[in-house]
């Protein structure tokens, strides 16, 4: 149910994001979703990739500060109000969203969103019981 997100610490330096992304590209690792959280002096790159274990060891080897965090990938109906429906389910279930972001590509009629919850297990329970599709990591290489 949970999938692993990779967080990378990025210092505020020109070209750093490019270096990190091209490293993954050269290793044949695909970025499925990504977002950057920034402050004035540094940022954290968050992403979901098709091969998280390979990505992490690649980063370690290149002395790039990274770690893994559990997130939940949710299918959202791709129509007006689709996201609101999912958010209402979470709100009613008293689940707090820390942040969320979208997948890079679209694979079906549904949009895919990455959610970070303070209580991932509770979120999973609330979502599935409301009939919302939650993806597993096994689904990712096929996307």
């Amino acid at each position, binding site marked *: 149910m949970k999938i692993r997100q990779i967080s990378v610490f990025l*210092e505020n330096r020109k070209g750093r994001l490019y270096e990190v992304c091209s490293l993954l590209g050269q290793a044949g690792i695909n970025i499925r979703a990504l977002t950057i959280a920034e402050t004035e002096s*540094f940022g*954290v790159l968050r992403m979901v990739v098709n091969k998280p274990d390979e990505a992490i060891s690649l980063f370690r080897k290149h002395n*790039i*500060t990274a*770690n893994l965090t559990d997130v939940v990938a949710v299918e959202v109906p791709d129509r007006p109000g689709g996201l609101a429906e999912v958010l209402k389910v979470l709100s009613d279930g008293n689940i707090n969203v820390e942040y969320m972001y979208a997948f890079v590509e679209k694979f079906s009629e549904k949009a895919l969103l990455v959610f970070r919850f303070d209580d991932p297990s509770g979120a999973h329970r609330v979502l599935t019981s409301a009939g919302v599709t939650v993806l597993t990591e096994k689904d990712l290489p096929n996307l």
Partner: protein
Amino acid sequence: MEIRYWNQRLETLPRHELRQLQLERLREVVGYALQTPFYKKRLPKVGISSPEDIRSLDDLKKIPFTVKDDLRQAFPKGLLAVDMEKVVRIHSSSGTTGIPTVIYYTADDLDRWTDLLARSIVATGAGPGDVFQNMMSYGLFTGGLGVHYGAERVGMAVIPVGGGNTQRQLQIMRDFRTTVLHITPSYLLHIHQRMPEFGLTPADLNLKKAWMGAEPHSENTRLKLQELFGIDIYNSYGLSEMNGPGVAFECVYKNDLHVWEDGYIIEIIDPRTGEPVEDGQEGEVVFTNLIRHALPLLRYRTRDLAFLHPDPCPCGRTARRMSRITGRTDDMLIINGVNVFPSQIEEVLMSIPEVGTNYQIHLSRHEGLDRLTVKVEIYSKLFTGDLAALEALKNKINEKLRASITINSRIELHEPGSLPAIEGKAKRVVDEREKL
């Protein structure tokens, strides 16, 4: 040139009488020193168990140097020579190891100190009728209060505004027709740069003089500032171990600083050997405080480098003149007038687990004020991916640093391996401040 004295007899005392006065006062302070746990242990070892053991000024050389670290070791009361009931003022500052140092003053100590400031002020030609804007920090820093009381004593109208807030400073200068400033050179320069913003030129003001201290600066800077404002600028020297400002001050000839030798015995030594240098040679300045009884300090090594002028000054004062400070014997940084040692910063950083081993101390100047930026590498293994945790880490580093060095810093987080490594004596301090 018109020469004014505050205490003509003392200021023009023949050298041999001055030396006799120094000897009497040295005996007196040795008597107080022997009341402190610190000197009670130290002085008898060199054959000084009572004031009478000081037979001539040469006996001063028997006394071992006192250093900053002694003050830390003696914190809080190891150098206190009088009952706490006699103490009326306490000044304190942080030290390299986070252990602070403290200076105590009795009412008589403050009186004698104030008198030397009154003397300094009158030597620059200032006095009653002058409106004095004191732009040095008040508080635990001795620079503000010391000059404040001296200025009141000579009868100037004192505006105790303290540092910062350029707009307000300029308003006060204009509204009260300020004639004299006490200020750091970088702040005076900044004031000038900001004046057009407020539609002011030096001609709109009534400034006549400035006393400049707390920050090393060159003669060129003085000349430039004098020209920009059309005023006379006098150099001031002091340190809280020797009470504060008013240890040495320039007279109207502006030809280096008269050391008030009836209040302080000055020695210039070779910092490596501790031996006196030849007359006129540069060396480390060592002071013995002859006028403070609450906390006596004998042969205190300032780590400031300077030299003494052998020739007399045309003003007629017999107190010798020392040069402006030409350097430091250690790596101490002066940031907005506050003394900071890189080792203090290192110690704080190394106490925080999320911080890696590499760091860099960066100094720059913005709007006339120094800015300290501390660049640190984060420790990979403790990276959680949480942005809020990183922001909290920055705040934590700043808070801990401020507790040690008393000033705010900007914290920059960097990736491991991105700052110059420890090997090969990495340049830990990058000082981009324009030399003044």
